[in-house]
């Protein structure tokens, strides 16, 4: 018997147990929900007692509301606005509070082409953000240079100047794609990444 079976405790999946789990999709459309993804380091009993290490609990709390920096650069910024606006409503996932100041933000969504002139400013904004901080590279331009791969004026991927956690491909990515990127980032934060 493992230690887990001796105790009346089971791994808790907050998405499944506390919040309703989002439907999984594959290429064919809506698929059956995958097996539960337990939040690492958190166990719960049936009588509402939760055992967790402080790190796991803090990571879980952080992952639930990443506040992005309102930092639109180009075309992707319009889709970022569409993601935050009424139809796609990013606030369902706690990430709709776009802060105008980097000192209040957790996630930098680099939405658009980064030019050589913009790169030092972007790096400075990243350094002004408090720890812990994450970066989502939204769109092909921010991920790898995209269709401006041979332009003399653009940076070939924002990961050359800041560490990127999630890449969202597309030109521009659909709002659903950005939402998926935010959800992937949540999973990463919950795992302590």
């Amino acid at each position, binding site marked *: 018997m493992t230690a887990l079976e001796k105790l009346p405790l089971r791994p808790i999946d907050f998405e499944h147990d506390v919040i309703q789990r989002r439907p999984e999709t594959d290429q064919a459309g809506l698929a059956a929900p995958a097996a539960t993804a337990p939040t690492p380091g958190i166990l719960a009993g049936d009588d509402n007692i939760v055992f967790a290490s402080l790190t796991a609990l803090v990571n879980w709390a952080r992952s639930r509301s990443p506040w992005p920096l309102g930092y639109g650069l180009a075309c992707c910024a319009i889709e970022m606005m569409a993601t935050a606006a009424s*139809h796609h409503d990013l606030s369902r996932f706690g990430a709709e509070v776009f802060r*105008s100041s980097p000192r209040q933000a957790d996630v930098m969504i680099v939405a658009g082409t980064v030019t050589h002139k913009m790169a030092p400013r972007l790096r400075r904004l990243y350094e002004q953000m408090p720890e812990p901080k994450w970066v989502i590279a939204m769109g092909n331009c921010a991920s790898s240079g995209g269709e401006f791969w041979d332009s003399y004026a*653009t940076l070939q991927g924002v990961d050359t100047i800041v560490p990127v956690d999630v890449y969202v491909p597309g030109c521009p990515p659909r709002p659903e794609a950005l939402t998926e990127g935010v959800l992937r980032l949540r999973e990463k934060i919950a795992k302590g990444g």
Partner: protein
Amino acid sequence: MVDAEVQATLEGGNIVLPIVESDEGIETEELILNMGPQHPSTHGVLRLVLKLSGERVVECIPVMGYLHRGIEKIFEWRTYTQGIRYADQADYVSNMLNEHCYTGAMETIGAIEVPRRAEYIRVIVDELSRCAAHLVWLGTYGLDVGATTPLLYCFRDREEILDLFEELCGSRMNFNYYRPGGVLYDLPPGWLAKLERLLDRYEEHIESDYVGLLESNEIFLERTVGIGLIPAHIAVAYGVSGPIARGSGVEVDLRRTRPYGVYPELTEMKPVIMQEGDAFARYKVRVGEMRLAIRLIRECITNLPGGAVRARLGHVWKCPKGEAYYTVEGAKGEVGVYMISNGGPNPFRAKFRGPSFLNLQVLPWLLRGRLVSDAVAIMGSLDFVLGEVDR
């Protein structure tokens, strides 16, 4: 109040801040305020260097180039058809109008006859694109002057327009739909019925939500009426075009004054012109253009002819030698492409005239001597897109 002798070297380091006297006789030090490139109300990555004397703007210097992606140079490296995709990126809010301009320049050089069905489809997608652009402007302008609700309403309608575009050409933005001699695809079955239903809803939303919400709002009126006044002669002198010029009473609408496509045949095409010249007049012009777009699209649906949507040009079409300047009335003003072809596979040169860039010229004149709290309201009413300013 306004010290004409201010000679501060801005980025050189030796900044001399003279002591100036305000209206009330209080002596203050002149302040240099950097607005942008990361600022929520600069609509992108514009940087404004504002010299302030107290609450007044003494001088405003726009610093551009934070989004310069070298689109005009890339045109020279790509084939003609590949270039259409890059024309999309210039004004990324109203992509179809840029594509129209870029393909129109090719068609003028090659003297290509566009089928009539394609011309009508072009008017439909152009006007839808104009609506989408004005909706983004209206939503963000609401944010600029302190109202959050218009953004949510505007993006609701914009999403419906983008859904139609997606069905038509497979993409929500950056459509790549125009081709020399027509458009890429014919309308999918059932698309026109969806469009008509959308127009009905949208027409109702304009009156009930946008006009009803904003024009009865005291704060919105206080922040726009009489703010950012551009007289007609100043608008002409600075080369301002589009809704800004029409809001100042300048009768320039390229759909009427330099007609292209089938616009001369459309009886509903009457330019929206306001005489006041302030931010509120520009708002009225843009809302009027949304209504006009609905009427134009309805007329096009009624008169939509059958036939092909693309002229037969052969598999490998080469642009003949020549040069042309083609203009389209964009959402921001006169979109123009000056294209030079030397008969090769790619354009020798394609100059893109972005209306936002020329409209931005009037901003330093407008902000001089104004209150700094009006700067955002004035800047928002000019409606520039930085992709088009920097290209």
